């Protein structure tokens, strides 16, 4: 479980996170939606402390990490798999090396076992054929899948997805969405998906949070989300997805 209380973050004069309060429940997929540039990605980065926290408390698995230094955050980060928007694969390493890297760096597991786990995950994301390729030779969707395998390899308690479908064609995007779902079912990790893609959000999400103007304006289940009466969110929904598509999800 991740708990955020009064989280604040500004860059210079620009306030990005005004006052964020959110509880991310264990073992479920929480989707944080909001307009581009509303600070969704910053929120993920602040939880990982890739970006510093101005004020507020962040409690991860019961530990208050707000005052943690870069060194103290290291063991916390190992429990969180992060899928970056740009995939952020190491472009000097092959696909195998990229996926194996967290294990090579932090564990004493034998190479045979690492190999088995890496190939297993590459099978899961259907990228086993590319095992010896360099990231430069892969398409955007393929990179995302490899990056997902890398995020999963160390058996994290949490998986963060930063705009997992942005910049992908609809077919590849729906494939990534299915992968996020099956990751959830297979590994049972707590997932946080940040997106403005409503199709993706409704496909993968159990809980929904709407971030607007630096504040979480709404939190709830899918049903509550689609029947909400927050004016800004209704407006966002109207623009973000065809009415028919949304009606499909309303039971």
């Amino acid at each position, binding site marked *: 479980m991740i708990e955020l209380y009064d989280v604040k973050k500004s860059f210079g004069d620009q306030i990005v996170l005004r006052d964020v309060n959110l509880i991310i429940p264990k073992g479920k997929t929480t989707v944080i939606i909001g307009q581009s540039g509303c600070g969704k990605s910053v929120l993920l980065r602040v939880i990982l402390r890739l970006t510093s926290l101005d004020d507020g408390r962040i409690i991860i698995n019961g530990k208050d990490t707000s005052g943690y230094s*870069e060194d103290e955050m290291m063991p916390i*980060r190992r429990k969180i798999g*992060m899928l970056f928007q*740009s995939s*952020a*694969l190491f*472009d000097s390493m092959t696909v195998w090396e990229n996926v194996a890297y*967290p294990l090579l760096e932090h564990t004493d597991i034998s190479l045979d076992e690492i190999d088995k786990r890496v190939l297993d995950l590459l099978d899961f994301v259907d990228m086993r054929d590319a095992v010896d390729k360099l990231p430069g030779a892969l398409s955007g969707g393929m990179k995302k899948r490899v990056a997902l395998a890398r995020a999963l390899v160390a058996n994290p308690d949490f998986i963060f997805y930063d705009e997992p479908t942005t910049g992908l064609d609809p077919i590849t995007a729906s494939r990534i969405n299915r992968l996020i779902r099956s990751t959830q079912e297979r590994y049972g990790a707590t997932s946080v998906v940040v997106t403005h893609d409503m199709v993706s959000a409704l496909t993968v999400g159990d809980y929904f949070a709407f971030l607007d103007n630096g504040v979480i304006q709404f939190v709830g289940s899918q049903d509550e989300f689609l029947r909400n009466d927050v004016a800004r969110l209704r407006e966002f929904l109207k623009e973000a997805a065809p009415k028919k598509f949304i009606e499909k999800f309303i039971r």
Partner: protein
Amino acid sequence: MKAFSKFFIDVADFFALGFKVLGGIFTRPAYISEAINQMYLIGVQSLPIVALTSFFTGMIFVLQTGHAMAIFGAKMYVGTLVSLSMVRELGPVLTALVTAGRVGAGIAAEIGSMKVTEQIDALRAIGVNPVKKLVGTRFLAGIIAIPALTVLSDGIGILGGLFIANSIFGISPQFFWKTVINALDINDIIMGIVKPFIFSILIIWVACFMGLRTRGGTEGVGRSTTQAVVVSSILILVGDYFVTQVLIWILGM
């Protein structure tokens, strides 16, 4: 005023990076194989261009000074001049400038691209300290490889001088070699080793700093690379004066 305070923040960050590297050297993991790989990239791969530069510098040096010294009838002692200049000045400075251009630019561009493509953040997210992994290993490789390159450069420059001394001024290789060896004492050798050691720290430090502070996509990478080469070249040339001055005091030359 804003530019002024920004400059001081940059300088403070620059020194902070240095302390982080120092702090990381003595903690595990050591990333030895990564450092050896970097030594190959920095040292072995720079050898051809360093060799070419210093060989021709030695040649030109003897060509120019040989004629001038002939006026005073001291043409025979051109070896003395070339060995002292190569070991004390030209070898260290030329090697440093060439590696600043080749290695410094490479490091700034590589780390800069990793920064703008979120690979540095990916390292941190995996729980790896990027300063230790990327900067520490390059420091270790640089402070070994660049002084070694400099020693080779000194020798190759003197060989270039020998080639011209023999072919144009008719000085025998044996005599030339004798003047080269006789000219050098231990203080010259110390100066010739201390300088590249300091320059190597400057080159790697500046390059890694510029790489890590890269912002703004590919354009930012280009800017960081240029700044890395410009700043380290200036620091080498200005620093050379002060290092020489301090060494002359310390060694009592």
